[in-house]
């Protein structure tokens, strides 16, 4: 393809002349801005190393090293694999995880479908009810089930004998765990599937219809392919969460052991740190593998939706809407019943014998917990987590997304930012003990203080807010920073005047996510809280252990209450911001 443009080429620009290229590249010297960028990125990587990599290395080390410091090789893993009890726990965990997934995903899909593809009223109420479990610690699902289906449960006793028959199920053990995990994972799967269903292209349905496809054919050829990646993600999330959960098996597991409770027993009960580390590695491996599979598969997703896609249009159908109403009400009722049972149990004198109203269960002074201090500790920890976590995740998303230097460092930081999604809280908690409780570590003084709790929570819940921030930053016009740079406006001014205001909705969402999760979590913090720093979620576990179930219920209600309050404040604030900024969002 030789055209006349040869005359425009320089004599020195022969193809393959590497030295010229090299010299030209070297001439691009870093200015002050590039150095600041590079230093910020390295600082970020350092923080990520401290939060995630070094503690995990300490965990690995523990699994391969003897008490006296000599290398143990796979000794502990062999001990583990030769213990029939531990292997049984492994089988139990897989079974629970499998059952939870095949129950929760279809149930969540039905609700997501009922809300996305029908014309029923009250969708936001149904949705709110379905999301309720997100605001509660997983122990609460177990406690609620105990009050509904336990030995003295409302339903199992046939409403305290009002009904002529009893409805008993063998709650304690695998059934209780599976029901709890279904409740726990349901909202997560529901959110993923709702998002998947909301981005379908109606044109495809119209095309299928004009080609004579029936309902079933449309479902199989259009709907399912379009939500394929959402389904895979939902399956993986449900399987991972139920595989690693600690709270529900602790409360309703009875003699049915799973990996998470095993690990707790090894560490707290028997002080067997090495075996605890082995179990936590066993706990993490499937989660990490599943996570990587999910990332690889969903990477292909992009092409399905184009800018020409049209939103789904719901056709009127009374029968379908009636079914949808029925199912959505059933789900909402089940969630409210569970929460209701816990609330009622916390307000009653002696379940089920003396059903008079009392607030005494909210007086924790005589309980194993010791006053309301754990609750306020939790609130304080959640606030600090929200503050530190939001700042850190937003800054890291910003640095990774917007800096132009040190590509490898940015990629490494990105990977480290999404990996916590796959790490079980128990593994993070244990890793933090090993890392920070080492007297040789200069950060040792934070062990047993609020700081380590906040750090563990930030690391544990890092990934979702990080991705929220990244998505929000990606939505900003790529050329904004170019425009700003061409006008010689400082980075700081651009950041405060443009980047942060445009990302404010995402920032609030991230803060709420950190707060709510820090309030409900038990797994990461149960190894880390100091003697004088008990937390609400830990108090629930210890009160339940001590047989003080009603007080455990009361503490759960306080946590849910605090979370709902924060959520409502968030909704209110968001509404104000939306109103204030409506002029620059829509025409």
């Amino acid at each position: 393809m030789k055209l006349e443009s040869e005359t425009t080429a320089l004599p020195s620009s022969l193809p393959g002349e590497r030295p010229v290229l090299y010299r030209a590249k070297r001439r691009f010297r870093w200015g002050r801005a590039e150095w600041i960028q590079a230093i910020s990125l390295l600082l970020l990587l350092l923080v990520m190393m401290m939060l995630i990599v070094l503690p995990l290395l300490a965990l690995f080390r523990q699994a391969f090293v003897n008490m006296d410091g000599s290398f143990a090789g796979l000794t502990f893993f062999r001990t583990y694999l030769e213990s029939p009890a531990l292997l049984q726990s492994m089988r139990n965990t897989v079974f629970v995880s499998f059952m939870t997934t095949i129950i929760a995903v279809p149930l969540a899909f039905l609700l997501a479908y009922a809300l996305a593809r029908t014309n029923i009223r009250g969708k936001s109420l149904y949705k709110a009810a379905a999301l309720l479990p997100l605001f509660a610690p997983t122990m609460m699902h177990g406690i609620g089930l105990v009050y509904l289906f336990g030995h003295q449960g409302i339903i199992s006793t046939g409403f305290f004998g009002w009904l002529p028959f009893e409805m008993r199920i063998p709650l304690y053990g695998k059934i209780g765990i599976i029901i709890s995990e279904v409740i726990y994972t349901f909202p997560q799967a529901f959110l993923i599937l709702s998002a998947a269903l909301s981005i379908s292209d109606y044109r495809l349905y119209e095309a299928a219809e004009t080609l004579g496809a029936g309902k079933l054919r449309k479902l199989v050829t259009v709907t399912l392919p379009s939500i394929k990646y959402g389904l895979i993600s939902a399956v993986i999330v449900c399987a991972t969460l139920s595989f690693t959960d600690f709270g529900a098996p602790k409360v309703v597991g009875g003699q049915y052991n799973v990996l998470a409770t095993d690990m707790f027993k090894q560490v707290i009960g028997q002080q067997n740190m090495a075996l605890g580390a082995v179990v936590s590695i066993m706990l993490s491996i499937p989660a990490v593998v599943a996570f990587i599979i999910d990332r690889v598969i969903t990477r292909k997703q992009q092409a399905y939706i184009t800018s020409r896609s049209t939103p789904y249009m719901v056709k009127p159908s009374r029968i379908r809407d009636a079914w949808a109403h029925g199912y959505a009400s059933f789900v909402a009722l089940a969630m409210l019943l569970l929460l209701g049972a816990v609330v009622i149990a916390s307000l009653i004198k002696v379940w089920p014998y003396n059903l008079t109203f009392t607030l005494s269960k909210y007086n924790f002074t005589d309980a194993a917990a010791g006053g309301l201090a754990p609750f306020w500790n939790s609130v304080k920890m959640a606030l600090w987590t929200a503050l530190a976590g939001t700042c850190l995740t937003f800054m890291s998303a910003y640095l990774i997304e917007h800096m132009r230097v040190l590509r490898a460092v940015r990629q490494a930081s990105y990977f480290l930012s999404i990996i916590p999604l796959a790490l079980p809280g128990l593994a993070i908690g244990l890793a933090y003990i090993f890392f920070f409780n080492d007297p040789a570590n200069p950060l040792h003084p934070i062990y047993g203080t609020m700081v380590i709790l906040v750090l563990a929570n930030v690391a544990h819940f890092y990934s979702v807010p990080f991705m929220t921030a990244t998505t929000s930053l990606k939505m900003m016009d790529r050329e904004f920073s170019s425009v700003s740079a061409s006008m010689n406006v400082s980075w700081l001014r651009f950041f405060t005047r443009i980047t942060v205001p445009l990302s404010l909705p995402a920032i609030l969402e991230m803060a709420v996510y950190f707060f709510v999760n820090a309030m409900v979590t038990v797994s990461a913090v149960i190894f880390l809280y100091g003697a004088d720093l008990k937390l609400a979620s830990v108090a629930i576990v210890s009160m339940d252990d001590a047989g003080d179930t009603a007080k455990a219920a009361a503490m759960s209600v306080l946590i849910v209450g605090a979370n709902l309050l924060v959520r409502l404040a968030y909704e209110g604030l968001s509404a104000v911001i939306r109103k204030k900024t409506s002029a620059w969002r829509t025409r």
Partner: protein
Amino acid sequence: MGALTIAGIHKSFGPFEALRGIQLNIEQGKFTCLLGPSGCGKTTLLRIIAGLEQPDRGTVHLGSRDITFLPPAKRSFGIVFQSYALFPNLTAADNIAYGLKGKMPRRQIKEKVEDMLRLVGLESVDGRYPAQLSGGQQQRVALARAIALSPEVLLLDEPLSALDAKVRVKLREQLCLLQEQLGITTIMVTHDQEEALTMADQVIVMNEGRIEQAGTPQELYDRPRTPFVADFIGAINFLPSELGSAHVAAIRPEHIAARGSDDLLPEEDGRLLPAKILHAEFRGSYYRVSLQPVHPAGQQSPVLVDVSASHAQKLDLRRDAVLHLQLPASRTLHYPDAQLAAQQGGRGR
């Protein structure tokens, strides 16, 4: 200040060579258009001039100053992007003031913003947010923001392509007037040949990372140096050349005269080609007629001819009617055949 001199610029993105040795001189105060099909490297070249990309090889000089690796902030170039990149959370006035803050006293900024708004005719919408403005208004705010800092060079990346046809034509005029008024060196990227021809003092036609031809619009239209330029700017017919099979002749539809068999003039210069009408397309003031030569001596493809509406009345523009096409030698261009083959192999139109 001074002319922009671009020498030996190469730029690759992985295996893709976006620019292959660009040599270019842009005079101070002139309006220059970078024209070419998508993927020809014109936007990459603009980004290198702006400092948003660094070339693998070559230099960019402004006057005698080497600015190849100068960051955009240090260049004092104004940029208007295709998407405008207006900050959605700032009003029109705040967008324009954005780059001025801290560089002059507050009162002066206010005056400057008012001046700019008046300059682009948007005094009344200063308090509105970009989402509340029409596409044309957004474009003018972006322009005002870019020139508020009195840059030495104004860079425009397809500034009109997102607008309706009517608005586009109007803004074309405004942009030209403004450029003349301010006398600012302006470089605009466009894929629209009409835009380039009507607006620019100098047009640079690019293809596959190289410059095909640079010149005034008139030069490019009348004396296109390659078949690519001839075909990209305006319409043109390629015919077998009488210079032999190694060459190809080219002539624009409006330079071919169509005659009925009864009004054949005595032999003028050039060739006479009898051809059958395939299709006549009404275009208001003229018809564009597509004809198949009757004796296809090497000429397979149809020939396009423009016939003025008044002349068309005298002719019989029915399908299969035969017209005699007169191809004046003075208007006929000749190229080596290899160039055309290369171009036709490379284009996807």
